[in-house]
């Protein structure tokens, strides 16, 4: 198999999800602290609660295909996170799952399709644009870069690194932005100078994807 191709297995995906729960738990206070000056101080708490439910549901859906697993993750988040994060992240995983229904392993093209469908879902539900100071500001550049680097025949792990760097930059780019969506938007100019909590949790989720795949495919 060339460096540019990789088979992502169901176990890669479920481990990504399990590790995401750990990462969000560890960063719960950090995300909540980010949500204080420009929100209502509950993002970390909500995401932690949501992914706790995801972890409890995973054993029940593990025997299904990847698409079905991701759709179940989406529904678990929709029914537990609440706020804006619930519908947004819930739709992200549900639409991502719809893009890969029936598959028990993924090509790199499938991975792009999955992330892109998730992003489109968020944009549709949130009616968001780039620059509104939201999770889209991290996810959109990340997916763009992943697609570009893989199309240019880059090594998959390298492409995932580039994707994560783009997500990180997108997250940091939200700092000077004026919020146009969500609770932060009520603050007007006081939202400037604060990093968006949704962009931060998105970055953490994508970083976990990189780390999971890198550690599991290291020997290959």
């Amino acid at each position, binding site marked *: 198999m060339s460096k540019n191709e990789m088979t992502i297995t169901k176990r890669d995906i479920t481990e990504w999800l399990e590790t995401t729960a750990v990462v969000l738990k560890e960063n719960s206070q950090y995300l*909540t602290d980010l949500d*204080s*000056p*420009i*929100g*209502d*101080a*509950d993002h970390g*708490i*909500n995401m932690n*609660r949501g992914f706790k439910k995801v972890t409890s549901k995973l054993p029940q859906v593990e025997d299904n295909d990847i698409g079905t697993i991701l759709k179940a993750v989406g529904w678990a988040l*929709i*029914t*537990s*996170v*609440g*706020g*804006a*994060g*619930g*519908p*947004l992240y819930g739709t992200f995983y549900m639409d991502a799952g719809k893009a890969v229904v029936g598959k028990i392993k993924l090509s790199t093209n499938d991975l792009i399709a999955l992330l892109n469908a998730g992003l489109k879902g968020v944009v549709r*539900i*949130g009616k968001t644009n780039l620059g509104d100071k939201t999770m889209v500001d991290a996810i959109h550049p990340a997916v763009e870069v992943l697609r570009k680097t893989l199309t240019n025949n880059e090594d998959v792990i390298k492409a995932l690194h580039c994707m994560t760097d783009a997500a990180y930059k997108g997250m940091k780019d939200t700092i000077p932005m*004026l*919020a*146009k*969506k*969500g*609770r932060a*938007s*009520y*603050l*007007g100019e*006081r939202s400037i100078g604060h990093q968006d909590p949704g962009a931060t949790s998105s970055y953490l989720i994508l970083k976990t994807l990189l780390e999971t795949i890198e550690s599991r495919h290291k020997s290959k």
Partner: protein
Amino acid sequence: MKKLINKPEHVVKEQLEGIALAYPDIVKVHFDPNFIYRADAPVKGKVAIVSGGGSGHEPMHGGFVGFGMLDAACPGEVFTSPTPDQMLEAAKIVNSGEGVLFIVKNYSGDVMNFEMAADLAREEGIRVLNILIDDDVAVKDSLYTQGRRGVGTTVLAEKICGAAAERGYDLKKLANLCRKVNINGRSMGLALTSCTVPAAGKPTFELGEDEMEIGIGIHGEPGRKRIKIKTANEITELLALSIIEDIFYKRTIREWDEGKGEWVDIELEDPTLKHGDKVLAFVNSMGGTPGIELPIVYRKLHEICEKRGLKIIRNLIGPYITSLEMQGCSITLLKMDDEMIELWDAPVKTAGLRWGM
């Protein structure tokens, strides 16, 4: 953090359990998913009204379930929107076949969760219409923001629509009434202190001893501006004039179009308050403000309205839409017509509001 609670993570559940024990003649409580509903639901021949939102605003919405107001209220975690499964199950229980009206406060989370719930309910054959409340004048425009938040007018809409539903208004007529109440209501709030979400353990923002936060919402989020503390008269003037001088407000919101079978964009306009208008004046405590202070605010509000030719024909004074222990107040002025006055006066029997029966 000093609170009258047990474990922070049990606050919502234990509150619901207490309510179920305290008001068994008015409400029942459903757990997993959580919601409070009328003990006599489903009420035949009547459109059911369901609302909800984050916990922490008590008595809204759970305290408004009963005759003449809500059929069900869905409480999320503190300051967090409830999830679609809550509204779906509630709608299934309270729907008597005449359909369900969702009264939704305009916060991105509430809007999205209630839209998802409406779509799910429709899949199960229940007619649902969603009407937004977006009355908070502190948010200046809607092009570059999420739009005005739903605050004080929510309580008034729930009462007025609740009475209308008892009178047999059909779903379409009820939705139109709710929209009318929304565009005729305007609110503005102010905080003297922050509040502490139990799970967070510390105040959502810090306010100095001599500072106030203007243009707050109801979730302990910071507002538009932070200024030095003023007297009650100055505060009342600030809030009241923001409302009275709020000129035509236009925005685009989404509602379900039953004919087309899809969500459509609707343009709404708030008419400006005019000399000679009859209003309901609602002076609301944010939760921590003592009863002795609200009438002081009302006293000045009355004077201002009189000067501006606004006739206060009804009022509501007290803690009705709160933010945990936040000290502060919000003012709502709702322009009333004869239909709304009659519906406001109609009997209501809930834990939070009760008259005429």
